[in-house]
């Protein structure tokens, strides 16, 4: 890996040197503003998915999820050379699998508005119902606080262009938060244009300082709350069943379960890119990201079950033989542990984009990415899009995307890990799979911005739809709508 990085670095140094030598002298005449007028983008997407491999319930269970993301982007010219961009949005989602952080809410037994956190999980979980009423299932969404959440983010970017527009630098800060996660980001970069703006080389760096506010599967943090006493707190008067449906007091998480000690998660990313005009009708760009992540890289909500330990359940004993079936609506298997992953991950994605202007109606947009990391994942991504202008104002965007990946070294399906493993996860996002995505879009453009809302002229409306299907069974539908306004 180090050898590859060195070679990539040498190639970029060579190109910077060669292109710098051949740079033309800038001719300063009329200085066009980098951005003529303030622009406002309002974007919104709706995403829904379903599948049978929820990570929160150990690799089986409903993955039903919906997400809505309204976002505003303000691009403000501060003067001829400088642009300030403010990007603010929220993401409001409802997730069946996240709701099963506490699956026993499905019984109503613990539906008391609690916060699903690692504190105060005691008798109130059972106060509203009889112990024998407590049921749950990986195939049924519960009604706990974790079933829905809002993720909010804001990014502020400042960019400056030189007088000849051949050198640009930018810096940005970002902040994002959701109920179990907070992120602070800082970034910046430079871009240099050569050969009459036929070539652009750029380098950008980004650092994310993230912090988990970890939420754990309810039976695990409850186990810690009562110091393993299965007659106390959450477990008081609750029958724990073994594989044969007999009442048992033998369940315990692997090694007694331990909370996360290091809640930080830092990401350091360096992006190098090269964009090149080939001729009057075609151009390409080449990207390399070098990414190092450190800290807690797993998700503390995600359960793992071991094949070499006894299984224990809460709920209806007669449903235990059909536990992995969708017909199971009333029994839940107690976790052995949460997923455990290395505290370091090194990623190298390499991307290549090639666009060709076929004729005045049609263009070809292509993209390929190779990805590898030190968790054993190798991936290929390829996509093609054919924008087709049906009039001066309307363009259609048919597209197709293929993706595949190998499994992480630490992945195994439900109940197949060994308790002797150091690292383990049953998150199917880290499994081996391939996916196909079919897309369609339409764009309306009015360069004269005739339609107005207040002082904003409508410049562009975009719509996109994608159908996404993984060979693991997960399917998703995605809609996006965007309006671009220009201040008059």
């Amino acid at each position, binding site marked *: 890996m180090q050898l590859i990085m060195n*070679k990539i670095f040498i190639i970029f140094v060579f190109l910077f040197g060669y292109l710098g030598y051949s740079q033309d002298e800038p001719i300063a005449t009329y200085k066009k503003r980098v951005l003529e007028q303030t622009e406002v*983008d309002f*974007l919104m*997407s709706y995403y829904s998915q379903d599948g049978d491999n929820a990570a929160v319930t150990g690799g089986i269970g409903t993955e039903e999820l919906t997400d809505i*993301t309204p976002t505003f982007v303000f691009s403000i010219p501060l003067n001829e050379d400088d642009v300030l961009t403010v990007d603010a949005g929220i993401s409001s989602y409802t997730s069946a699998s996240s709701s099963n952080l506490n699956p026993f809410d499905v019984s109503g037994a613990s539906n008391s508005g609690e916060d699903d956190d690692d504190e105060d999980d005691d008798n109130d979980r059972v106060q509203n119902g009889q112990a024998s009423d407590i049921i749950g299932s990986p195939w049924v969404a519960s009604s706990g606080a974790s079933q829905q959440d809002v*993720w909010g*983010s804001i990014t502020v970017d400042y960019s400056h262009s030189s007088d000849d527009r051949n050198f640009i630098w930018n810096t940005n800060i*970002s902040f*994002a938060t*959701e109920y*179990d*996660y907070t*992120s602070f980001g800082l970034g910046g970069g430079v871009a240099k244009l050569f050969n*009459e*703006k*036929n*070539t652009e080389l750029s380098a950008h760096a980004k650092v*994310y300082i*993230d912090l988990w506010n970890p939420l754990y599967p309810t039976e695990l943090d409850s186990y810690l709350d009562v110091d393993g006493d299965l007659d106390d707190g959450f477990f008081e008067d609750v029958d724990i069943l073994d594989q044969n449906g007999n009442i048992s007091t033998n369940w315990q998480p692997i090694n007694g379960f331990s909370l996360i000690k290091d809640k930080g*998660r830092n*990401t350091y*990313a360096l*992006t190098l890119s090269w964009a*090149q*005009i*080939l*001729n*009057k*009708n075609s*151009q*390409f760009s080449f*990207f390399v*990201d070098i*990414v190092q992540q450190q800290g807690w890289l797993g*998700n503390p909500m995600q359960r793992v079950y071991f094949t070499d330990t006894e299984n224990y359940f809460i709920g209806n004993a007669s449903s235990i033989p059909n536990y992995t079936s969708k017909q199971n609506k009333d029994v839940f298997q107690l976790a052995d542990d949460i997923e455990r992953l290395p505290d370091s991950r090194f*990623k190298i*994605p*390499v*991307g290549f984009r090639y666009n060709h*202007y076929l004729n005045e109606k049609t*263009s070809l*947009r292509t*993209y390929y*990415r190779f*990805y590898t990391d030190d*968790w054993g*994942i190798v*991936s290929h991504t390829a996509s093609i899009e054919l924008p087709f202008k049906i009039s001066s104002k309307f363009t259609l965007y048919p597209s197709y995307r293929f*993706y595949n*990946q190998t499994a*992480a070294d630490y992945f195994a399906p439900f109940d197949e890990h060994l308790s002797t493993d150091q690292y383990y996860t049953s998150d199917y*996002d*880290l499994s081996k799979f391939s996916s196909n995505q079919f897309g369609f879009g339409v764009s309306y*453009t009015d360069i004269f911005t005739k339609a107005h809302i207040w002082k904003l002229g409508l410049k562009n409306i*975009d719509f*996109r739809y994608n159908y996404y299907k993984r060979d693991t069974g997960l399917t*998703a539908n*995605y809609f996006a709508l*965007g309006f*671009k306004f220009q201040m008059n």
Partner: protein
Amino acid sequence: MKNLIMIIILVTFFSSCSTVKEYEKVNLNDPDMALTQMQIDRFETNYQVYREAAAGANGGKSGGGCGCN
């Protein structure tokens, strides 16, 4: 050998470029020819970052900033 082939392709590709003047860039300046990701496609990249282990090298996130991979 693979690295050598890659370098040859890069150098050949680069050396075959002819300089295109500003007034000849009409087709290249078409918004559909942009080498960056379109604004409307940002959400698509976001859900792919969550659902797939690979990320980055596309102008979007390559990790961090979310509880995703």
